[in-house]
């Protein structure tokens, strides 16, 4: 069975686990670095990116997360997870994991009272996807190799570059598991050549 890790240091971990399980895959909550090896793909959930980064550093996760990215295994970052995955962050000199070739801006839709739900057309996923944006970031610039999957009012809110997937919003907060399923399909694809060896 496909095993999807959810980085479990802080944030909406339970919701991703529920979504993964609803898609028929196995979910592993990753709290220790050794557990990363078991995972075929990794979801970095929403939460507070500064808090997650502190805990990532505290427990030496960063080299292992970069290794995970280099290994070709798929990674999916939602909201704070997208910030952790991006190669550039507006106003910051250094990225976190720096895998997905996009530039993101934090809290770019405003404070909590401006947080919203909107229906999105996500390429290859769904034309009517209700997306929940909470103090969300958005993608300001995307490299030419990055496939823009969805926009909201002209702003890029979902994108994919090869094995890396990122969304500004929280697919885990609704009962619509199509984006999670899309990621699981990416993981299945990535696993195929390995299985043949």
């Amino acid at each position, binding site marked *: 069975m496909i095993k999807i890790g959810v980085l479990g240091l802080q944030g*909406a971990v339970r919701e991703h686990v529920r979504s993964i399980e609803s898609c028929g895959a196995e979910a592993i909550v990753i709290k220790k670095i050794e557990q990363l090896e078991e995972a075929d793909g990794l979801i970095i959930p*929403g*939460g507070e990116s500064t808090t997650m980064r502190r805990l990532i550093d505290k427990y030496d996760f960063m080299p292992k997360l970069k290794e995970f990215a280099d290994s070709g295994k798929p990674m999916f970052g939602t909201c704070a997870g997208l910030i952790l995955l991006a190669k550039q962050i507006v106003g910051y000199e250094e990225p976190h994991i720096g895998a997905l070739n996009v530039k993101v801006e934090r809290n770019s839709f*405003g404070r909590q009272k401006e*947080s919203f739900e909107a229906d999105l057309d996500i390429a290859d996923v769904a034309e009517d996807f209700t997306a929940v944006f909470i103090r969300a970031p958005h993608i300001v610039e995307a490299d030419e190799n990055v496939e823009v999957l969805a926009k909201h009012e002209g702003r890029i809110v979902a994108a994919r570059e090869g094995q890396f997937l990122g969304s500004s919003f929280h697919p885990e*907060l609704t009962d619509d598991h199509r984006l999670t399923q899309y990621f699981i399909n990416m993981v299945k694809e990535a696993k195929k050549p390995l299985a043949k060896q």
Partner: protein
Amino acid sequence: MKTGTDRVKRGMAEMQKGGVIMDVVNAEQAKIAEEAGAVAVMALERVPSDIRAAGGVARMADPRIMEEVMNAVSIPVMAKARIGHIVEARVLEAMGVDYIDESEVLTPADEEYHLNKRDYTVPFVCGCRDLGEALRRIGEGASMLRTKGEPGTGNIVEAVRHMRKVNAQVRKVSNMSEDELMTEAKLLGAPYELLLEIRSLGRLPVVNFAAGGVATPADAALMMELGADGVFVGSGIFKSENPAKFARAIVEATTHYQDYKLIAELSKELGTPMKGIEISSLAPEARMQERGW
């Protein structure tokens, strides 16, 4: 596009899970909290133990403090309004505060009615001592709960009591047959529909944090062990000798609440914690948890 929906308001609290929310009284403290890994800060004029010591009427903080704190950090900023004080809550919402705590730590403005929190775009957190109180607050529109505990005492006993009580009642309701629920709703003084929801989810429909008396990393870990989704720390951090170290220790103990060796390490040489107050020495009228219903 819709703002202020239940999903957006409750979702914001979901993102805070496993984290620590710290009371701060100025920008400098807010930065220390953010640097230590807090998921949010609560901007106040005085921490609960000082409110207790000062006596008199405790009100919403000076908006300048909230403004300073909001400008200083990128994590969410919460603030407290008095129970039932519609205008304090509206002012905080207008300022762009990310979450409002309708709090018994402040002197209630209304002894009969809590705020109708459904009316607001900004989400609310409220205190509870048992499931009935928890569900009345959700019924009014609270998107997040916390135990009341006994704020500003540095004594964890009341937070433990409230967390155990709520969770025991959730387990009870989860195992009831549907035909028992209306009577249970009557006994709890809680909305029937929310009992149905708990029964189908097997848990509360919103996040429930621990608050009111967390003074050490071990206290924070204890509350997580008892099923809290995260922890509010009020007076403990900035009343300690080394706030930065203390704040980091609380954050780590909350993340790894079952790693006892780590908690032992974290607890070393933290300096003297808050002196603390024995609850039985507090006169009933001095107990903040009795405020609200």
